[in-house]
């Protein structure tokens, strides 16, 4: 008889089986439903942000054609696009979406350790999104302060939404941070405490390592955003002068005095830089698993990959001021932050090498998720290398606040994570829905997205070399920007519209396949990790049937010599184990 641990026997007590439609799908405490809720809302706001980016691009590519884009609306679009994409889409989708779905399944547990808190996390997230979207409908509209919300400009005259929009933004961010904290406590506790038997830390898939480290970073970094939001809110509503210096507003002395705008920037970037890795690390993790599975080969240098994730996470708190080389802070800081920034390139580069070395001598299955993963490696190499320009303080000076910066961060934390998101959405789609997606449509979607985004962002770097500044409603006439740059801008806009329209393919695919796709088997990719070994697909409430799985091996036993299949699931004892231990069967 298989061993049934205490945790399993106690199930009836621990998991409240949902009874009605409402408790099952709306006020649900099931991590899988919450994951889908998170994902759905995140993708929905992401589409709004995509629409805003098209508005920007229309103005930049074809100035003077669209009548409803005035300067104020342009700056509002810039701001909301950035903030939504970074916080409300990428952070929420990677951690709230994939984190919620994969952590309990990959850890072999039935749910998060605090399901009620998990549910609250989603509803607070939804509330933060609603507050954010509400700012579009108030007088003055949403804030147009730029996503960095720099004081004093974000709450003083001359910035769109400087009274109402910015307040809604600050409140929304505070609610989001509460939501993230509730989710984050769950992710961390679940991963540390609730892994199933045999699942040691080093047997965890890299997805979990990425999500875990990103969550820890988030828990440490979001407080900085919270503090800056609260203090900025005090300055705005109560008239304190934390960040607000003595200044003039339309010819009048303002009532502020003595505050430090640079302090705001330090707090903001102490959050802002780890935020980059809050998005990137889960992407690193997920893409590692996609690559390994479809290359039918273990991830190369697993230990190095884990250490690199931890090292990047730790270093990410020591580099924040590289966003502030031209901020007017003490220039001697530049030496320190340029050095730490370039050091972080080393573990990051190792990760890239190891992904490529995983493909080397693999048996690569070139399906849709794998194509997206390979596309990610390419764009990430490109974006990472341009980061070496901007991290090196003296090179940042001519390039700061130009389109080179825009192109760089879109390549490295826009396109690259989004390609991973698509890889992961396609990869786990059969598990989540129990259906296969349409492969042809998926591949067309990949080619449009991958080539389209490269056509947007490669040329954009060169606008930056020209010295074209970012956050300009229009360039106007200058002597250092040739007229041909406008043609380049127009082409970038066309490529952006093409990419945006191509996303329809993705939605057609996932909705059509939901009904009409081929039924998926439990483990269509022949993957080793636990989520593919559930008794039901999609997994039912509680995921594991009567008994939790036991884990006998690491997550990457692909193409093990002498084994008849080219993969061994983590919960398979294997012949050598059964020989030595004489058990009659320890896995579900």
């Amino acid at each position: 008889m298989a061993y049934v641990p205490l945790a399993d026997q106690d199930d009836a007590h621990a998991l409240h089986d949902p009874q009605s439609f409402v408790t099952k799908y709306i006020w649900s405490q099931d991590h899988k439903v919450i994951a889908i809720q998170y994902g759905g809302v995140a993708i929905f706001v992401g589409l709004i942000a995509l629409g805003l980016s098209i508005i920007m691009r229309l103005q930049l590519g074809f100035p003077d054609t669209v009548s409803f884009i005035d300067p104020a609306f342009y700056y509002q679009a810039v701001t909301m696009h950035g903030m939504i994409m970074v916080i409300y889409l990428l952070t929420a989708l990677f951690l709230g979406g994939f984190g919620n779905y994969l952590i309990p399944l990959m850890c072999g547990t039935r749910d998060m350790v605090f399901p009620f808190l998990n549910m609250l996390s989603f509803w607070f997230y939804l509330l933060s999104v609603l507050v954010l979207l509400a700012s579009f409908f108030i007088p003055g509209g949403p804030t147009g302060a730029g996503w960095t919300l720099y004081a004093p400009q974000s709450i003083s005259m001359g910035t769109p939404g400087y009274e109402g929009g910015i307040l809604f933004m600050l409140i929304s961010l505070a609610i989001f941070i509460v939501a993230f904290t509730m989710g984050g406590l769950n992710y961390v506790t679940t991963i540390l405490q609730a892994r199933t038997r045999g699942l040691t830390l080093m047997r965890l898939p890299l997805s979990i390592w990425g999500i875990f480290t990103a969550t820890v970073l988030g828990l440490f970094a979001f407080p900085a955003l919270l503090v800056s939001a609260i203090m900025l809110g005090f300055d705005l509503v109560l008239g304190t002068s934390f960040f607000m210096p003595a200044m003039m507003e339309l010819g009048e002395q303002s009532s502020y005095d003595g505050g430090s705008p640079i302090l705001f920037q330090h707090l903001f970037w102490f959050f802002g830089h780890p935020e980059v890795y809050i998005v990137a690390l889960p992407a690193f993790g997920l893409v590692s698993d996609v690559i390994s599975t479809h290359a039918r080969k273990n991830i190369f240098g697993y230990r190095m990959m884990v250490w690199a994730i931890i090292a990047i996470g730790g270093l990410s708190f020591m580099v924040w001021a590289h966003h502030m080389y031209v901020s007017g802070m003490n220039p001697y800081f530049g030496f320190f932050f340029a050095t730490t920034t370039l050091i972080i390139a080393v573990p990051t580069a190792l990760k890239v090498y190891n992904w490529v070395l995983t493909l080397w001598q693999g048996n690569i299955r070139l399906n849709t998720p794998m194509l997206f993963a390979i596309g990610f490696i390419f764009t990430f190499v490109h974006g990472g290398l341009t980061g070496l320009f901007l991290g090196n303080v003296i090179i940042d000076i001519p390039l700061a606040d130009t389109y080179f910066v825009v192109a760089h961060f879109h390549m490295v934390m826009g396109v690259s994570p989004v390609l991973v998101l698509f890889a992961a959405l396609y990869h786990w789609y059969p598990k989540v829905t129990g259906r296969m997606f349409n492969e042809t449509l998926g591949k067309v979607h990949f080619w449009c997205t991958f080539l389209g985004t490269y056509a947007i962002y490669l040329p954009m770097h060169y606008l930056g070399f020209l010295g074209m500044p970012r956050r300009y409603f229009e360039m106007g006439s200058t002597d250092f920007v040739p007229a041909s740059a406008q043609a380049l801008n127009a082409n970038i806009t066309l490529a952006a519209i093409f990419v945006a329209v191509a996303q329809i393919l993705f939605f057609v695919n996932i909705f059509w396949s939901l009904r009409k796709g081929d039924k998926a088997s439990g483990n269509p990719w022949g993957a080793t990790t636990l989520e593919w070994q559930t008794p039901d697909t999609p997994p039912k409430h509680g995921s594991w049937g009567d008994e939790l799985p036991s884990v006998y091996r690491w997550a990457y036993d692909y193409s093990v010599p002498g084994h008849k299949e080219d993969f061994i699931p983590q919960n398979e004892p294997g012949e050598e184990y059964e020989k030595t231990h004489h058990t009659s069967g320890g896995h579900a």
Partner: protein
Amino acid sequence: MSLYQDVTNKPWDQVGLPDGIESKPVFAVSNERLALTVFMIIASVVFSLLVVSYYIRMNIGDWVPMSIPTQVWLNTALLVLSSVFMQGAVFVSHKQLSVSLYSGAGLLFGIGGLFAIAFVAGQYQVWGLLADTGQGIRSNPANSFFYLLTSVHVAHLGGGLWVWSKSAIRLTHAATSDHFHQTFSLCAVYWHFLLIVWIGLFLLLANT
């Protein structure tokens, strides 16, 4: 195995159940206790960043150290009492088989929370007092920080009181004590944490 050995071993060399048949948490504490610890670390980060901002802002030049009203001492005493009663509830609940709000550990727990509410009310009174004597939030950055730090601290206490009130309501019906022992001890830990934070903030505000 230590955490260090855990993350340096070669996982592909090992097949089987290295830790035996029980699942193995990283830390030998309950999930709730771990989550609370993590939360207290996060809260410490919040307060640390506020204190760092305090020091940076302090050195800008327009800073006038404020005189702390004597009532703040009284409030501090209330918070100390609150913590003491919470800890008392933990001690007493060891010896009880069942608890209710109206006697023994439950009563101590209830009174501890009431003292915390009295602390919040006292802080509110101090804000009004300061505003009335021309030391309002806009009068000087030192005063701004007084309002900021105390209100963030009160907000954290408010979170604790939310959990406290839920437990107190449940305690109006008697229940077995081992169910509540953990609640009491988690509340007590959190209360002590906020007391220590408050004393730290108080020292900072009073001396600079």
